[in-house]
């Protein structure tokens, strides 16, 4: 009898905090996720959603370590194989048990998704050893296997098998039309989608059989997309919502001064750069001219004046904490030096170039471009700037319509090599490398090192390679670095640990949020 009481007491204690403190979080985001299918689009919004309704094998902590989620632990069997031991007793929202089969199925589906297949190109099919052990195998040695496992959110293979009422396969990945997966979801996550009116209102409810008992106390999340910056902020200030993301940077001070709300910022990893196109302009083939432009651009000044200190001035692509980060590469604003370089290159009199930048993609993008235009005019480079909305920008960017083009990049792999693969490797239509290298910068050594880093599984050697690439890009002024944007969130003071659930990827872990 005593024992029974004890058990009951323990159960009550365990269940207590979760039941007693059940809270509703009202969340406002600039745009809601586009679908319920996590593989339909690789975007920040979809990944934020995935972290609510699904669980990855492993996830990043705020300190950029790997935290076991559906994978309890893992070990490397050989350079190609990583063996994962899966958590037992995990249930999907549908009630189906989670097993290794689901991981195999999910990886196979990721390799079919137009958005994810690029990231998972180095992966072969996964092999289920038994129900709770799975081998993830790459086709060549690959240094980022674990990084990529943060993108494997196992889906309920039984739930998504078969055909729906229209006779279409339930596992089809469809971007613009009806599909079963676009409208139904079964994951292992802390929340399931109770109702959804696209572009209007989402209601998430806590999943009763969630495996992780160490969660926060939010049992309902009401997500409202509010695209207008001023309205989103007003909704927070008026107390109509509890948490907003992103926060318009011009309002940071206002939030900090307002009682009852908190501003959370974190240095980000999205680097903003300009690429001078060497194919369009012979002048840019001369490294001295590119260096002169880097020396002429006072990016610390832009951070201070335009970004109001809500950014970190950059001299390289990798932010601190990334393996490729090199401590001694610092911003180098020096107008005299810039003029001397222009003179040495024989362009003392300068020349006229064109430039394009988006006006609604990055924080203050248009203002930054204007500032750079006036800074370049000091070394007699006259710039004709054209800005445009992002919907039109990328086609122009791809067509390389201007001599200097702006681009911001965030590494999906949270790894330095990703910047180089997309922005600085020699453009190659077949391999897809250098897809966003509109500067047409091409250095075989950069290609060689970046490719070698992919299959290097020794972290120290890998870091040395990537750091060498950063140094080359810096010395040759492959691009004009500006800054890393800061990430920002704001919420009511009722959110007790909001600071701990955010991270550099901008996927807040709402499952861990504690509200008053």
């Amino acid at each position, binding site marked *: 009898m005593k024992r029974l009481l004890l058990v009951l007491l323990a159960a009550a204690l365990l269940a207590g905090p979760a039941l007693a403190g059940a809270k509703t979080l009202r969340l406002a985001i600039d745009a809601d996720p586009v679908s319920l299918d996590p593989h339909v689009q*690789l975007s920040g919004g979809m990944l934020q959603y995935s972290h609510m309704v699904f669980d990855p094998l492993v996830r990043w902590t705020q300190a950029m370590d790997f935290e076991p989620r559906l994978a309890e632990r893992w070990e490397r069997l050989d350079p190609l194989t990583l063996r994962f031991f899966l958590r037992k007793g995990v249930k999907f929202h549908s009630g189906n048990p989670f097993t290794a089969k689901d991981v195999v199925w999910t990886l196979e589906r990721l390799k079919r998704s137009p958005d994810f297949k690029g990231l998972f190109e180095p992966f072969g099919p996964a092999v289920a050893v038994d129900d709770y052990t799975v081998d993830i195998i790459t086709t060549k040695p690959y240094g980022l296997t674990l990084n990529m496992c943060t993108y494997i959110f196992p889906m309920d293979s039984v739930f998504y098998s078969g055909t729906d009422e229209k006779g279409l396969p339930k596992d089809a990945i469809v971007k613009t039309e009806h599909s079963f997966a676009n409208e139904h979801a079964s994951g292992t996550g802390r929340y399931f989608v109770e109702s959804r009116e696209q572009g209007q209102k989402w209601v998430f409810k806590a999943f009763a059989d969630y495996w992780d008992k160490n969660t926060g106390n939010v049992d309902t999340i009401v997500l409202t997309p509010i695209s207008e910056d001023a309205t989103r902020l007003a909704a927070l200030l008026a*107390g109509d919502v509890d948490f907003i993301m992103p926060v318009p940077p011009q309002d940071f001070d206002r939030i900090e001064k307002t009682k009852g709300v908190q501003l959370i910022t974190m240095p980000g990893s999205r680097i903003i750069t300009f690429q001078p196109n060497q194919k369009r302009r012979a002048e840019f083939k001369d490294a001295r001219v590119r260096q002169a432009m880097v020396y002429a651009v006072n990016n610390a000044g832009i951070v201070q004046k335009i970004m109001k200190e809500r950014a970190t001035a950059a001299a390289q692509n990798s932010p601190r904490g990334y393996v490729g980060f090199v401590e001694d590469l610092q911003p180098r604003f020096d107008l005299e030096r810039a003029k001397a370089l222009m003179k040495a290159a024989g362009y003392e009199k300068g020349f006229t170039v064109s430039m394009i930048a988006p006006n609604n993609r990055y924080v203050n993008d248009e203002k930054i471009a204007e500032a750079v235009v006036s800074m370049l005019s000091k070394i007699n480079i006259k710039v004709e700037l054209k800005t445009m909305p992002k919907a039109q920008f990328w086609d122009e960017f791809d067509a390389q319509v201007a001599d200097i083009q702006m681009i911001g990049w965030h590494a999906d792999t949270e790894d330095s090599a990703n910047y180089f693969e997309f922005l600085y490797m020699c453009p190659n239509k077949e391999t897809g490398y250098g897809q966003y290298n509109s500067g047409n910068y091409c250095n075989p050594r950069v290609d060689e090192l970046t490719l070698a880093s992919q299959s290097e599984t020794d972290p120290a050697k890998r870091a040395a390679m990537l750091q060498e690439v950063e140094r080359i890009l810096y010395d040759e002024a492959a691009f004009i670095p500006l800054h890393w944007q800061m990430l920002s969130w704001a919420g009511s003071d009722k959110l007790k640990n909001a600071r701990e659930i955010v991270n550099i990827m901008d996927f807040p872990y709402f499952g861990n949020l504690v509200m008053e």
Partner: protein
Amino acid sequence: MFAFFIRRVTQAVFVMLVISLIGFTIKQSVGDPLREITGISVSAAERDALREKLGLNDPFLLQWGRFLARALQGDLGNSFYFKRPALQVILGKAPATLELVFSTSLLVVLLSIPIGIYAAVRPRAWLARFFMGVSIVGVSIPVFLTAILLIYVFSVGLGWLPSFGRGELVTLFGGWQSGYFTSDGLKHLILPSIALSSIMLPLFIRLIRAEMKEVLETDYIKYARAKGLKPGRVLLVHGFKNTLLPVITVGGVQLGTLIAFTILTETVFQWQGMGAMFIEAVDRADTSLIVAYLVFVGALFVTVNTVVDLVYGLVNPMIRIAGRR
């Protein structure tokens, strides 16, 4: 009447054709929808394959022809973002806009008529001057700013009214989601309606005041007064009724302005109607939804103008006779 109707329908078809053509032309320059529906690291080849599948690589006339053929069967295409038929999306958003427009119209009618008449009868009273002054201010501040100002005063500052959205909704027959039947829904209607009416109200007050002043000078009003009719009857039946004609005309024409300003009001208040949907569609380069919206609004315009013309006939028999010729 029948001939009038036939003429109107022919006109409408022509207007719709032109609108769809314009829609298709601007669609090319709004941006690439593929950029919006794929992640940035998706390869160009992959994107091209998708574009081909959606038929976006076909020649302009072929795409337009295909659209027209489907439109005849009531299919305005599929929204890329909502992944549903565009017409269904628009109809789903229509109640929000219609309720907002209706509340605004109600506000305009209820306020502009008494204020307009009052200002015409007592032009020198300080209250009339106050109304005229306020209406100048109202019409000169952009609705965008009025809306933000209202939010900051009544939601953030005083905390009386909600700052965004439609609040608690009730689903009526046919899936019409209405905010008219809950107190929360009605509260959410107040600020957007005021913001939207700030554009229309001054115009109508001034119009009614001017017309009324003119009518009050006419001989038949003087005669009616001399005959000893009650002042109220003289004002409303003899006076006001005769100012209605220009008011209705302007009202019909202003409907376009009203729809244009709902776009702004809805965006600021995150009011999930057709206007906000349109702006977001432009932002997302959801081109098929943009075209469908333009065609839909075009059809709405033609319908409303036809109705206005019919009402006209009721108010002024002279026009009815002309229509019958």
